């Protein structure tokens, strides 16, 4: 059995005290333990930002890639060895600004990856600039008079791209978040999880208190995750009430399940010692 202590690394996290990342970190580890995924069999891929640090502080295989590019790397890992669980984790700058393109394509491919976005609606590691999810009017170092851009809606975008599992969690509810991470990992296909994550240092608006006063759980109100129109409707709700939970959950073939070459064994386990190319050469005669 995998235990929490198995996931302990030599170094300890250096996020700001009170950062939402601590509870997300806890929830990821609890999900791995509860699913009993061996630490050798999961790869956590991160980008750059506060969320980029995860692979350094969870003792599994990890790949700390570059800003915005978690999903391309995670896709390659998954196609190389479909026996591995692959989790990509990034922030709102990483996933909704620099790398938005990859989100759309990973979604439409329905590749079996769990993708977690720590959405704190601000740039943290670069010390407080406006993010694509910062609300209009947000004052930051790069929007000193208040942002004049409308924020993007990650849930609607994920739905429009054909994501087969769309959910939103809250860093202030670790138990609920853990359950969502478990569902995103076990979902066969692209499991997208946007996580509302207070940034105690740079975002003075979207605080724990702000979210606690507004969030409610979709599943408490009998939301049907099989209904994509309802999911769209719920994705637009942001104001006095903010829904968390599973917006949409659909079963459809994964990208890798449609590749016949992968049915025998993972690519990484093929014997390459003496490949015969004589028939390929004859084709050029």
């Amino acid at each position, binding site marked *: 059995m995998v235990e929490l202590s198995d996931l302990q*690394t*030599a*170094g300890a996290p250096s996020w700001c005290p009170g950062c939402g990342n601590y509870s997300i970190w806890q929830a990821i580890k609890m999900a791995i333990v509860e699913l009993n995924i*061996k*630490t*050798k*069999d999961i*790869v956590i*891929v991160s980008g*750059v930002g506060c969320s*980029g*640090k995860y*692979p*350094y502080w969870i*003792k*599994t*295989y*990890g*790949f*700390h*890639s*570059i800003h915005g*590019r978690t*999903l*391309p*790397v*995670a*896709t*390659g*890992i*998954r*196609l*190389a*060895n479909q*026996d*591995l669980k692959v989790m990509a984790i990034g922030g709102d700058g990483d996933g909704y600004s620099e790398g938005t*393109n*990859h989100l*759309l*394509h990973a979604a439409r491919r329905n590749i079996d990856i769990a993708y977690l976005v720590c959405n704190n609606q601000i740039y943290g590691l670069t010390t407080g600039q406006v993010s694509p999810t910062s609300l209009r009017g947000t004052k930051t170092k790069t929007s000193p008079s208040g942002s004049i851009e409308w924020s993007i809606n990650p849930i609607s975008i994920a739905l429009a791209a054909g994501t087969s599992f769309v959910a939103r969690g809250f860093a202030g509810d670790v138990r609920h978040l853990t359950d969502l991470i478990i569902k995103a990992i076990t979902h066969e296909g692209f499991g997208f999880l946007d996580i509302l994550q207070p940034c105690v240092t740079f975002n003075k608006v979207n605080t724990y208190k702000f979210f606690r006063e507004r969030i409610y759980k979709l599943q408490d109100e009998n939301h049907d995750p099989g209904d994509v129109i309802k999911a769209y409707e719920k994705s637009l709700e942001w104001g006095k009430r903010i829904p968390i939970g599973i917006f949409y959950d659909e079963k459809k073939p994964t990208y890798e399940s449609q*590749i*016949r*070459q*992968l049915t*025998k064994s993972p*690519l*990484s386990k*093929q014997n*390459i*010692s*003496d*490949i*015969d*190319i*004589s028939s*390929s*050469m*004859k084709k*050029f*005669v």
Partner: protein
Amino acid sequence: MNWKLGGEAGFGVLSAGEVFARSLTRSGLNVFVSDEHPSLVRGGHNTIQVRFSEEEIRCHEREIDLLIALDEKTAQLHVGELKSEGGIIYDSSQFQLSHDILKRVDVNLYDVSMAEIIKELKAPIIVRNTVSLGSSIAYFGIEMKNLESVIKDSFEDEKISNLNIEAARRGYEYFKENFNVISSSIMKRGDDTPRMLLTGNDAICLGAIKAGCKFLAAYPMTPASSILHYLAANAEKNNMVTIQSEDEISAIGNAVGAAFAGVRAMTATSGGGFALMGEFISLTAMTETPLVIVEVQRPGPSTGLATRHGQGDLDFVLSAGQGEFPRIVLAPGDVDECFYFSFDAFNLAERFQVPVIVLSDKYLSTSHKSTSFFKTDLKIDRGYLLAEDELEKIEDFKRYEYTETGVSPRSLPGQRNGIHNAPGNEHDEYGNSMEDAYKTTQIVDKRFRKLSHILSSFQKPNIFGSKKADVSILSWGSTKGAILEAMNMLDKDNIKSNFLQVTHLSPFPADFVSEFIQKSQNVVSVEGNKTGQLANLVAKETGHMIEMRVSKYDGRPFTPKEVYRDIKALLGGQ
């Protein structure tokens, strides 16, 4: 002999030329096929040129013996390339030609009723190409059976192949009946061993397959796309996965991920796509992930001449990516080297855990050359990649362990005792992020220790020609073919020459090149770029400044005559 077919784009000019060339290869001749086309799908002017001989040939030549003009434009545009007493095959029912119109009296006009033959056969217009191939075979006095066999193999539908074979026969007979065969001097090569006719991109694909590459991620870009086309078409056969990524950033990211997970992986692009890959190349170096990147050059800047030839990206591939790190850059000069370097690239990537760039160019990538079957007794070397039982014996696994060679033990996800994080941040031996000054120096030095080991693993650069020479040529990439033929021309003028082909550009074999230059009298660099990028690299790496430089940057590859002419001009009164 030199044959050219021209017509409007979209009318099967390129495929007809390939059929002709393949039939000549089957007849035992040495063949080189080059094509020039504008960046248009329909409506432009396409030509394909097939040069063939009993002797070895390595490149195209401008002067042609026989021109097939499917339209008037072809005749007008290319009549100037015909040798004296060369011929034009055309169809007077489509357009008129005369010595007056062409303003040349020293060429022979062969009016072949291609349209009439097509009509009799109730064949579509595109079959006109095949009629002209039959006439061409008659013109050169070559046996028909190989053209027929290639046509048979080219079409899956028996009806269509029979129709085309009949069209070729009619073209052949029409020519025989109506004209005296001019040239019957073409003989067969001595032996009947089957040989291939393939492009540099084809050869790179075969090298990758042989090397056990099981993953290609790429985004379409001329002239690299045919690598993705071939490997995608043959993916199932080779148990390989190919993915058309959403962009080049994703393509290299996919390949890096696959390589990290233990698959031999590659991406292929041209300069513009490669520009998008820079940050990932740097990450590949930092995480010491073995990766092969094929860069097929075309002329820039920017979109440049999308379907033309150039060698302007050497500086760029040598320095792409932020920070300092070892990389390997290999530059094949012909289809054989495309195969062997592509194979080697995967071994080098895993042995040294660095990014390996195979730097090709448009001329190599699309020109077909006849060659013997490649040697396949090649050994796979996965370097310091540990097996499960080897890992189990290690008490304290350090993925980035400081070693003598700079190469550290590597584990793969799924292996119990090899758990680590591949870090984008600077790190210690375990891969843990750190910012310590001393340790930073240590890990940078560790990575750079690989350089001398990489260099000593390289094969020596190729030297061709006489030891004592009046002129010594330095070059790289596909200029090889034109240079080797130009050397024969210089020889006829009693100018002794030799040629150093630098095949391995990073790390640079400075000692070897320096020694060559010191021993040489007149050193000339020949490159398909404006600034003399190899010559500049030689200056930087060896301190020797090459003053005599042949440059070509008009979007076209060198011909032997151009190299010969420019070298003669540089030598001047000597």
